[in-house]
């Protein structure tokens, strides 16, 4: 690491990364295991894996509904591998649309009760593609300052004017909408669940304001699909305002348990997106096995009310357990399947992360600049397959590790 720093010379394009290289070097010099180089050697179930030689409870995978080892899902994937091969080797608009791609888009239309669904190769590309394509020169994008990187990158890739507002601040959003020229095109971009703190957005109020100013609304429901709302359609469904959302963005890499992204919409002209959206056109489509597992999983999630209830129970139990143990949490009440534990600083956050790993628990370490207000967070994402006993075990591990590191 030090050698790399010493080679810094004029004209080295990597010089700009020196502060980050130094920050990592300092962190690792303190002796902690590298939080960003963990290897899952074996995965035993949606909730348990062998990491760095240790059997570990997984509490940082976004595998909310535990579909990754569902027997029907796995069987569908194997069948598609046999029937359609390992990959499509082509774009959706050329040779890359198989029966499975149409089937998973139909499954999404049925899941959301919407007319159009468009599947991308990743969730990142779904935001990148839709946002950069629909908001063009002279249009305005009004978005929450804590938006996901894929939303910011979608803004940066397009030609629209980008206007951020303070996180979840309805008044700040309205002020900005009011100042935009009345005849300009407007897109308001919101998320159902914000993944850093696990808090939800007041979508009903915010969407009403957006509509008052004639804006179209895009909501990223990546962290709520399958779990929040009576049918698992997300926070907008839960708050009774899904009909007013023009575009829902989602992912297959969380509750659905595979990889891929999508946009669903009732816009009458939506299908034209398939020809004009570059991150959709200029990339290979998902492998047949992936869309087959996704379609099976999405259809099973339509009937997963019992799992949703158990996941809520897990979220409530963990939130209360950690709060009672004296930890500072991202939300006063459990609002999603993410419970975020606020660390005093990066050093003790990394120490706590490592102590938990030694206890046999994996969580996500989130650090600046990815976090709001430069916080260091230990993000816990619960799974419907975590048993009540595992949740109690997790609380015990946190309590012991917190005392060892001196946080509680």
């Amino acid at each position: 690491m030090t050698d790399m720093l010493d080679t810094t010379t004029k004209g080295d394009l990597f010089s700009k990364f020196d502060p980050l290289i130094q920050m990592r070097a300092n962190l690792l010099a303190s002796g902690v295991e590298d939080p960003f180089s963990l290897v899952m050697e074996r995965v035993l179930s949606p909730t348990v894996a062998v990491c760095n030689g240790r059997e570990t409870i997984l509490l940082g995978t976004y595998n909310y509904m535990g579909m990754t080892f569902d027997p029907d899902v796995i069987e569908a994937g194997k069948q598609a591998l046999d029937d359609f091969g390992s990959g499509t080797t082509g774009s959706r608009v050329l040779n890359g649309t198989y029966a499975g791609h149409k089937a998973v888009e139909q499954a999404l239309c049925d899941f959301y009760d919407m007319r159009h669904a468009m599947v991308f190769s990743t969730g990142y590309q779904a935001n990148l593609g839709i946002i950069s394509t629909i908001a063009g020169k002279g249009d305005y994008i009004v978005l929450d300052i804590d938006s996901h990187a894929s939303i910011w990158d979608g803004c940066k890739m397009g030609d629209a004017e980008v206007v951020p507002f303070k996180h979840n601040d309805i008044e700040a959003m309205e002020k900005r909408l009011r100042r935009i020229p009345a005849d300009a095109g407007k897109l308001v971009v919101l998320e159902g669940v914000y993944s850093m703190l696990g808090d939800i957005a007041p979508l009903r109020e915010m969407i009403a304001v957006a509509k008052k100013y004639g804006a179209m609304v895009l909501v990223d429901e990546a962290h709520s699909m399958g779990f929040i709302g009576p049918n698992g359609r997300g926070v907008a469904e839960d708050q009774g305002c899904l009909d007013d959302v023009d575009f829902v963005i989602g992912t297959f890499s969380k509750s659905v348990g595979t990889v891929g992204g999508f946009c669903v919409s009732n816009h009458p002209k939506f299908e034209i997106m398939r020809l004009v959206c570059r991150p959709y056109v200029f990339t290979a489509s998902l492998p047949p096995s992936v869309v087959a597992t996704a379609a099976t999983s999405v259809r099973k999630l339509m009937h997963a009310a019992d799992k949703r209830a158990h996941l809520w129970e897990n979220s409530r139990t963990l939130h209360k357990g950690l709060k009672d143990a004296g930890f500072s949490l991202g939300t006063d009440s459990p609002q999603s399947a993410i419970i975020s534990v606020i660390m005093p600083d990066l050093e003790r956050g990394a120490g706590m992360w490592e102590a938990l790993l030694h206890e046999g628990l994996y969580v996500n370490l989130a650090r600046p600049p990815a976090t709001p207000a430069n916080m260091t967070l230990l993000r816990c994402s619960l799974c419907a397959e975590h048993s009540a006993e595992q949740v109690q075990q997790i609380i015990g591990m946190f309590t012991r590790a917190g005392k060892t590191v001196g946080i509680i």
Partner: protein
Amino acid sequence: MTRDETSARIAALIEPFNKKGVAITDATRFTDDLEFDSLTVMDFVAAIEDEFDIIISMNAQAEIENYGQLVDAVVKLTA
């Protein structure tokens, strides 16, 4: 509103964000001299937007590095 009047109003707004009491001239840079991080920038921009009832989009912010450029941008947006 003249450029001086605009500058005076912005100078008043910058006070609470100028933690080190740096003397402000047109050449004062927000990142390098005032050490504004992204959160401070957001709050400071919001204060100016509210004061002048304007929008300074991210695209416009990308062109503004120092105090003089900010005053010029606000003068233009309020013209």
